[in-house]
């Protein structure tokens, strides 16, 4: 099969750290970012736990050097911070030196401002600058501007909780087909009353720390985050003698075609997406050294995903864990957050613990890793599954 696409930079901001180094330290120390919500005044504040980023909007604006009358949603602020770290990490000094694109993803977009000023817009002109910032593409446009990407291919994907994985997949294919030399890929989502209440009505929010793959799991914790990768072509990597952090070796996307919000009991979609990704990477299931599972800790996801893993890997399921108990489920950003974690795994030969796990599920004999484990890792598989039956799998590798 064709070679993987080189990853030369990454950036992240999440509930467990404001950059890659802080995130990695929290992962090693088993430190969760889940807490009671402090930045949104919601009725549900005592009945849910979330993964919140420590900075408030003012601090993020200051970090980015924005004027007070900017119209950045929190999604755009988080996205810009993470994308800038990725660019710096890839040691890019002239973004225009090569054909550079941006593929971002989000599910809430500028909903945080819309819900805040929804009626206020009608009464006063003070905050109307945010009206333009509502649509999902706005945060991407702002990130492009922050990075200096202009006159280029810049677009946004929104496929619910698989969004960022799909952005990485699309970016990798744009590099492979030679349409771009370099592409920044990832996603951002902030917390909002909209998503908190949406998931609340679906009755899949846990009132305590989430417990992925546990028999007694009570649902998910929502989180906010942003993460981006820099993907570069083989030509560029050679010419600039770039340091490569890892490779996007395989990708697969499939639809469960079962239910708008629930996954099929046998995980048809997830099975297909894992099989496709393995085929693109030219790998066999036994070549996968670690699975970073979607593992949201909802009753439905973990059962469906677990069954799909068994269907693909049979008796020899490699070590797996979900990192959602650290960060919360960061929706559209999740695929990029976990891509960064997968690359850190490969670089350091480390498997992260699946926090809060106690009791194996009765439906199958799958037990996630519960302690930090050292293992030589060459290949990490990462799943992202979402509403609308969207199933995506990415495979990251140490070598091309």
């Amino acid at each position, binding site marked *: 099969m064709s070679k993987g696409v080189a990853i030369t930079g990454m950036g992240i901001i999440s509930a467990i750290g404001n950059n890659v180094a802080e995130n990695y330290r929290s992962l090693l120390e088993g430190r969760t970012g889940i807490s009671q919500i402090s930045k949104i005044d*919601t*009725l549900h504040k005592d009945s849910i736990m979330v993964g919140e980023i420590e900075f408030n909007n003012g601090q993020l604006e200051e970090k980015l050097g924005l004027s007070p009358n900017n119209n950045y949603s929190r999604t755009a602020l988080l996205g810009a911070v993470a994308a800038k770290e990725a660019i710096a990490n890839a040691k890019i000094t002239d973004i225009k030196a090569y054909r550079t694109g*941006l593929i971002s993803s989000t*599910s809430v*977009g500028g*909903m945080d401002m*819309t*819900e805040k000023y*929804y*009626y206020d*817009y*009608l009464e006063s*002109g003070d905050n*109307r600058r945010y*009206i*333009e910032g*509502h*649509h*999902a*593409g*706005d945060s*991407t*446009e702002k990130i*492009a501007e922050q990075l200096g990407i*202009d*006159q*280029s*291919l*810049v*677009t*946004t*994907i*929104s*496929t*619910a909780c698989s969004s960022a994985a*799909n952005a990485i997949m*699309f970016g990798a294919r*744009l590099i492979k*087909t030679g349409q771009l030399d370099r592409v920044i890929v990832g996603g951002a989502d902030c917390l909002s009353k*909209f998503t908190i*209440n*949406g998931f*609340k*009505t*679906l009755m899949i929010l846990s009132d305590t720390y989430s417990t992925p793959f546990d028999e007694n799991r009570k649902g998910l914790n929502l989180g906010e985050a942003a993460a981006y990768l820099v993907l570069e072509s083989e030509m560029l990597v050679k010419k600039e003698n770039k340091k490569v952090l890892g490779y996007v070796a395989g990708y697969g*996307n*499939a*639809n469960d*075609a*079962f*239910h*708008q*919000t629930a996954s099929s009991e046998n995980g*048809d*979609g997830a099975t*297909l997406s894992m099989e496709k990704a393995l085929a693109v990477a030219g790998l066999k299931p036994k070549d996968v050294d670690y699975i970073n599972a979607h593992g949201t800790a909802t009753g439905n996801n973990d059962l469906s995903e677990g069954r799909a893993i068994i269907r693909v890997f049979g008796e020899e399921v490699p070590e797996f864990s979900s990192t959602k108990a650290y960060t919360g489920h960061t929706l559209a950003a999740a695929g990029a957050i976990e891509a960064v974690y997968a690359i850190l795994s490969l670089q350091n030969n480390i498997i992260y613990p699946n926090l809060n796990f106690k009791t194996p599920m009765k439906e199958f004999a799958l037990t996630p890793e519960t302690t930090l484990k050292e293992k030589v890792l060459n290949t990490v598989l990462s799943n992202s599954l979402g*509403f*609308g*039956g*969207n199933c995506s799998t990415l495979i990251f590798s140490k070598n091309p």
Partner: protein
Amino acid sequence: MEKVFINSIGSISAQKTFDNKVFLEEITTYEDNVIPAIEPNYKDFIPPAAARRMAKGIKMGVVAAKIAMEEANLSNVDAIITGTGMGCVRDSEKFVTAILDNQEQFLTPTSFIQSTHNTVAGQIALGIGCKGYNFTYVHSSISFESALIDALMQLQTKEAENILVGGVDESGEHTNTIHKLIQHIKLEKINTNKLLQSNTEGAVFGEGANFFVLSNNKQNSCYAQILGVKTFNTLPISKLTANLEGFLKDNNLSVDDIDVLISGNNGDLNFDNYYLELTQGLFNNTQQVYYKHLSGEFNTASSFGFWLGAKILKTQHIPSEIALNSIKSKGFGTVLLYNQYRGKNHSFTLLRQC
């Protein structure tokens, strides 16, 4: 690289376009600043019980997709790729309103579920049982073109054979109200035939769904071949002509090869100068048409322009109501589409007779 064809179409718009047998024979004129889609009798396409539960955007998308699938004589496809600027925005509005008015109590999940941008693509997949690739692009006025770029890549490399691609947006009351406040929607009501003479800020908003089966396997139903699509997040007006010439050159074409320019003018005093740059410049001697007076402006309005291009190439006919100048080409072999919204998110699309 495989050639890519538009094998079938399905359109629901502010004009009566859901019947593929006709081509704008009867034009509906409006005197307004927001215009609605003319909907087919949904019962002819989907069970009434299912239709009742669906948001308007879902119904428009599912039915336009169904019309396209039927014309291509397919029961399934390898991939479904949609573009939508706002998703099912009415459900977003409904859910926000419910949160605010009831202080986060007594909420039901339906509108939250439908508000997710990928709902239409997910519902189509559910309806036909398509377990293939399923993507949704949500980037303002290039949402549909992003879907096209993705589909082209898969069809040119033979990763897929048939892909259902579509653009869909519904219009929402609150969204329209606030866009009037910032004059993205014209303050005055305007007649369909006077849109480009309005000389005022803002556009007339619309809604609709345009779906297509794209394939590297040309069928008898074929409308056109897609030669290329290119998007730009920003483009200063001074660079427009040069970039367009570069795009044509990449496709081994020059200005003289273009028989028709389909221009995305929406009558906004502040931004139509981009279109004028081409219509009065490079394409001054080319036959020109426009369409947003018929479809209204929305994030995926360019998918209506794409539908128009496909129709023109297949029927070799241009209805007089869409003429932007008086030049007449001898035949219609190659069509170029140009679109942008508020000076951002530009797209060039090239179609050829098949």
